[in-house]
C-alpha cells in the first residue's frame, strides 16, 4: 500500500534496474580507460567493466532460474584477482624501471 503512495511510482524492482546499473558501470569503465593515463587507474576501469558483466550474468541467471550465471560470476571474480596480480606486478616493475606509471611516458618502442 505504502509502496503505491510514494509519488505514485511502482516501486517494485525490475531486472531492468540491474541491467541499467550494468550498462552504466560498463560505460564508466570504458570512460575511465579512455580518460586515464595512470596504468593502475586503467586497471580500475577494467574492474568496473568486469563487475558490470558479472551483474549481467547474475541477473540473467536469476531471471532464467539457472545457476550458470552465478558460476560465471565466481569465475570472473577469480580471474579478475589473477589478472590484477599479474597486472600490478608488471606495473610495479615498470615503476621500478621508469619511475612513472603513466602509460604515455615510456616510449622506447615506436613505429
Amino acid at each position, binding site marked *: 500500500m505504502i509502496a503505491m503512495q510514494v509519488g505514485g511510482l511502482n516501486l517494485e*524492482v525490475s531486472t531492468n534496474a540491474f541491467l541499467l546499473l550494468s550498462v552504466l558501470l560498463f560505460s564508466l569503465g570504458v570512460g575511465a580507460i579512455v580518460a586515464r593515463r595512470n596504468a593502475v587507474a586503467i586497471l580500475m576501469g577494467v574492474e568496473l567493466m568486469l*563487475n558490470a558483466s558479472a551483474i549481467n550474468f547474475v541477473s540473467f541467471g*536469476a531471471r532464467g532460474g539457472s*545457476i550458470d550465471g552465478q558460476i560465471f560470476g565466481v569465475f570472473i571474480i*577469480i580471474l579478475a584477482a589473477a589478472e590484477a*596480480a599479474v597486472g*600490478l606486478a608488471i606495473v610495479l616493475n615498470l615503476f621500478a624501471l621508469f619511475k612513472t606509471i603513466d602509460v604515455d611516458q615510456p616510449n622506447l618502442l615506436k613505429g
Partner: protein
Amino acid sequence: MLLAEANTPVTDWIYTLVFMAVFVTTLMAGLWVVIARDVIRAGVSLFICLSGVAGIYFFLNAQFLAVVQIMVYVGGTTVLILFGVMLTNRAPVLTSRRATDRTLAGWLATVIVAAPLFVILVGRDLMEKKDVKTANGWFTMKEAAAQAPINTVALGDALLTSYILPFEIASLVLLVALVGSAYLARRREDESGIEGRLS
C-alpha cells in the same frame, strides 16, 4: 534473502528503498572512479563501488557470490590495487599531470558505449523475449527468490559436477598468475652479480 521473503507492503517499501540506496551508491562510486583527480580517491571509490555490487548480488539472491565478492574482490583485488596506487605514489602523474585533455574523450567514449547498450539491455529488455513467466517484462525480486535454486548448495553442486573442469583449470590459472607475479615482483638480489647463462 530475508528481505526477499518478507511480503508485507512495508517491507516491500523498505526493500525498494534499500535497493535504491545501494544502486545510487554503487553508481556514484563508479562515477567517482572515473572523475576523481587523485588516483587514491579513485581507488577508494572503487572499493565502495565493488562493495555496492556485492549488495546488488544480495538483491539478486546470490548470497554466496556476494560474500565471495566482498572477500575476494573487495578484500583482495581492490586492496591489491590500492597497494599498487600507494607503491607508485611518487609517480609524477599523480601530482603534475591531470587527465584533463582526455576527459572529453573519456565522456564521449562513455556515451558512445552506453547508448547502444542502453537500447539493447534496458530499452528493449533483452530477456523479455525469452522469459515465458513474466509476460509484461517486469520481474520482481520475490519472483526471483522463488525461482532461483537454493543458491549456495546449487552453486557447490554445479561447481563440482558440470563445472568441475573449469574449476580445476582455474586453480592452474591461479598457479600461473602466482608463479608469474612472484617472479616479477621478487627482490632483485639475483641481478647484482653475473647471471648464469644457458648453454
